[in-house]
């Protein structure tokens, strides 16, 4: 875990948590979320980064110069779509049968 993620008193090993969930990851060309990361450079708040419970958005919080998004770990909650007001996030559910598979729920 990088230094910056240790901000605050507690850190959750989110990737370990996500390792507990089943996924059926769709191919890149069918990614259900598409982020136009060039728009992120002017964003002053990165609320997608803070809101996403699955750490799909990595940016200055991780010491990165550019927004790095990956849809594979997405839990399909929709928080990023709500948080982004930069017009950068295109959001839809994955194709039927793809994406997260909760076994408990």
């Amino acid at each position: 875990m990088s230094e910056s993620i240790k901000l605050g008193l507690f850190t959750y090993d989110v990737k370990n948590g996500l390792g507990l969930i089943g996924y059926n990851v769709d191919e890149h060309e069918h990614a259900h979320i598409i982020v136009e990361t060039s728009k992120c450079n002017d964003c002053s708040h990165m609320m997608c980064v803070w809101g996403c419970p699955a750490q799909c958005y990595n940016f200055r919080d991780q010491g990165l110069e550019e927004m790095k998004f990956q849809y594979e770990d997405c839990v399909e909650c929709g928080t990023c779509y709500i948080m982004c007001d930069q017009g950068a996030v295109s959001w839809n559910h994955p194709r039927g049968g793809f994406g997260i598979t909760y076994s408990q729920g």
Partner: protein
Amino acid sequence: MDDETDFDVIIIGAGFAGAATAFQLLKEGIEGDRILIVDRGEPIGSKNLTGGILWGRELDDFEEYLGNWEMDCPGIERCINHKKVGFLNNEDALFVEGRFASWDGTGGTEEPSQRSSWSVLRAKADAWMAEKMEEAGIFVMGGMKIDQLHIDGLDHDSYDARDLTDPAEDSGKGTAQKWKVDNLPKELVEKIRNGTISGIVQDGEVMTSKVVVIAEGSNSVLTRGYHFDSMLHAQSKDDMLLGVKEVIHLGKEKIDERFNCFAGDDERPPSGMAMELALSLYRDMSHEAWEKYPNTKGLYPRCGGFFYTNRDTVSCGIIVQLKSLPEGLHTYDLYQAFKAQPAIAALIEGGEAIEYGGHLCPEYGLHRMPHRFTRDGAVVVGDAAGLVFANGMQIQGMNNALHSGKLAGKAIAKCIADGDVSAKALDATYTKSLKASYIFRDLKRFEPATKFLNNPANFTWVPELVGKTANRVFREIGEEKVPAEKVLLKVRKEMRAKNKANKKGMGLFSMLKLALTGRKL
């Protein structure tokens, strides 16, 4: 008339709202093979997640299809007879605890009808409900995501499904955000938003029905795209909560023992504990975040905790108001701080996390309901319609989902029988009964409570004051005893001296104002 459409009713989403609609339609005499229910999860339920308790016995109405649901449904976990409300700061925890022998039918009265509160795991429960729907003759299809609704006289190829939700290329920022659909020709948009809905489109294929029921849940792309709620189309962070939770395996025996639960027998389900918590855990984290990200200085995350016992696992999580999230705090770290609080850590000790997840929960209240629950040929039910009730002690969505589904089922059957499925006819039945139901009465009665509950005090100094006061009132260190109210005042004084924010927030006038709004709870 039956031959005109592929189905009488197509339901999108096989959660509680969708299932209740389907079962109610059967009860009203619609044939099972005239009802299609689709869900994007494969298996059904695999997309669902709850941080809640199922209240009431709405499922009893479907006994003919579900049988003894409280014993047989795998996702209906434990009957809650033990309820706790807690105030947590980083060190102290004070719980108010109620144990009600009559709630699980083991004491007081043996009436099973007393059992009315359940911990639930939805992936399991929804899969079971889907089986029951199939057994009842309903067409159930999993792994099917609906891209578009079919609209009379509109070629679905004339626009792309993603046009409805994607930002436009010339999108502005903030409130000036534009969506691709805003750039489509006006007549087309008018049809999309107000035309008669008569089916669904999946992978370019159309299936028609007299009525479409949108039961997609809290993050409903179709509700947004087809303009049941213009507010949803843009940003809705003001009234959205994010739940983050883990399911932690402890084993049945350990749970029975640790939480003093009735183990269950052949006739009665195991009993369990449910707990809701006011948290003031995030002060230090917030202050640190503000230093690095001064944009949101002064903002504390408004966050509550929940903890429920399931059969062999516990559900442990937080629910945070998205608009109150300051920059610099990851939601998963908020969860970790909750999990690490000593009182919570003790409860999950020795457990193994088996699932992690996140899910949105609408908290619209009456002021932000969708502006319409129906369109010509369509209705929206459950979480997709924002029918969730929150008063701080309880968040209820699942019973509302079931109830709204029933009302929709009744209304749709009547409208189909009358041969009029226009928005007007559906409003006169469904919307009318919805607004007269306990769902709306609850929302109305507790509207003033929202003001109280949104007061930052409840997420900062109140739980801290309560916890610290209890700490000293209960402690015996061989000194002269001090009355509780004096301890309270002393703790208040110390907290005010220690923290600038407290000095202002905990002024007598602010406290009085808080107490006055709290009276309306």
